[in-house]
């Protein structure tokens, strides 16, 4: 059980949770900020799970939002269309919600296994194209199923997602993926990233481990999708397109490929930066009476990304992990 010791991580997580809850209850952070925090935490799940596939296992995937879409639609269909529950239903409603989220994750994992198979034969750019195609196929399929709203999207999803649920899911994701990475299975995944041939010759069943990485990564992406759907109260095909996957990929790269800590930091930083720039631009336009509007937000956002990549190519954290994310020997820090 040595791999499931998480005292420090749990402590920090609990402190973060208590802080946000206290600030929220005393009204120091309003609903808008709270919403951004919730979104950031969902992006934490997406970035950490994509990092398992891209950063740890080295399988370049461009279809992560496809998995999230599966989670959003499956869980949304369960709560909205099958059981027709709402938060007013109390415990039973929440039970259906949690069951729906897990079912969404499992469905996404199944799709992940299916996508894992082409990755057995393809590498690098070619794999990226195949996963990109898969993501688009999922989007297109959803666009053409009238039962879940087709191009209109799945509307009227009850708002079950709240800070506590999203936080718990993000925490569990981090703990499970961290433990996986630090286990001997994790070493097998890293060896595939480093050199697949040498991994095979060290006795690692590379086929099995690549599928495992896709399945676990997709599972958590599905969970994130489900939480997103029940936060925004809609699941729409365009939310889960190529650009969404790229955003998560950017988080993985700006945080540092292979660093889970980096993915957490980048998920928060980029989500807040994207929203913060609205305020910056608005106040700038007011103060200087320059003709700059909201359309400049993404220009500045993109420029900031370019600068991060130019001056810190390895990402904010490189491959290093915060100490509380490393199990056991502190000397192992940063050796991944």
């Amino acid at each position, binding site marked *: 059980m040595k791999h499931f010791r998480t005292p420090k991580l749990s402590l920090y997580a609990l402190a973060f949770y208590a802080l946000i809850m206290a600030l929220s209850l005393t009204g120091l952070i309003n609903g808008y900020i709270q919403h951004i925090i919730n979104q950031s935490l969902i992006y934490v799940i997406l970035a950490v799970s994509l990092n398992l596939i891209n950063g740890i296992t080295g399988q370049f995937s461009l279809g992560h939002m496809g998995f999230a879409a599966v989670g959003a639609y499956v869980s949304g269909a369960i709560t909205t269309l099958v059981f027709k529950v709402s938060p007013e239903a109390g415990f039973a409603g929440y039970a259906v919600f949690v069951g729906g989220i897990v079912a969404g994750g499992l469905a996404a994992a199944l799709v992940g296994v299916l996508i894992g198979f082409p990755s057995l034969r393809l590498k690098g750019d070619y794999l990226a194209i195949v996963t990109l195609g898969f993501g688009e196929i999922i989007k297109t399929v959803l666009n053409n199923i009238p039962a879940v709203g087709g191009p209109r999207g799945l509307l009227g999803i009850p708002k079950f997602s709240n800070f506590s649920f999203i936080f718990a899911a993000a925490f569990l994701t981090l703990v499970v993926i961290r433990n996986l990475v630090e286990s001997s299975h994790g070493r097998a995944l890293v060896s595939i990233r480093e050199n697949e*041939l*040498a991994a095979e010759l060290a006795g690692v069943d590379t086929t099995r481990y690549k599928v495992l990485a896709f399945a676990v990564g997709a599972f958590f992406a599905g969970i994130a999708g489900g939480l997103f759907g029940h936060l925004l109260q809609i699941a729409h095909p365009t939310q889960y397109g190529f650009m969404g996957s790229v955003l998560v990929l950017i988080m993985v790269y700006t945080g540092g490929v292979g660093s889970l800590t980096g993915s957490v930091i980048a998920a928060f930083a980029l989500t807040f930066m994207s929203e913060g720039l609205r305020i910056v631009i608005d106040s700038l336009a007011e103060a200087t009476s320059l003709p700059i509007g909201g359309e400049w937000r993404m220009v500045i956002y993109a420029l900031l990304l370019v600068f991060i990549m130019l001056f810190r190519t390895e990402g904010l954290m490189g491959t290093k992990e915060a100490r509380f994310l490393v199990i056991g020997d502190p000397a192992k820090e940063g050796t991944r």
Partner: protein
Amino acid sequence: MLKVKNLKVSYGQIEAIKDVSFEVPAGKIVTLIGANGAGKTTTLRALSGLEKASGGSIVFKGQDITGREAHGLVGLGISHVPEGRKIFPTLTVRENLELAGWTVADKKEVRRRMDEVFAMFPRVKERASQLGGTLSGGEQQMLAVGRAIVTGGELLLLDEPSMGLAPVLVDEIFEKIVEINKRGTTVLLVEQNAAEALEIADFAYVLEVGYTTISGPAKEIAADPRVREAYLGV
């Protein structure tokens, strides 16, 4: 220990190995020599399961292993040092060695084998906490051989261990191969550097465009006029 009979391997339409037969007796060093494109590497890759044989049979320790997958053969006792070293570049030397012992359940045994590697290659020990990718070519080759020692196994397949190395380092690597063999590991060595390979080997086979043509004790092969002319340049 290893018996290869009428082996055939194809890449699509191209038959790279047409008819290769040889034997590796336990405890010996056997070398396959031949020019570029003769099929040496392909033969080794087929032995360790990286390529599928399209015909013939491979029998290891009395067991037919034709068509088995590479990762499964590691447990049976075949360790393969691939052409071009293929070390793990962003892991430290120590981690490279640890990962090589991935299938070994007893981690104390892995430590013991790592100490053995460090004793054999002091240079590798000096670089233990350095990233694999920062090593020089010769050091990487030592690390690659060290990894095979940690992986363990009774049969060691070596693919061009002298490639791209300075003559001094080539001598050192070949000395270590003899040392590993003396400790009880059977060695199958694939080499273009025929002179060096024939010097340490017990038996030799010459590979030509997918066929084994000449075979016999290494000393006889080294004296064979055809081999002397074509591969030893004398």
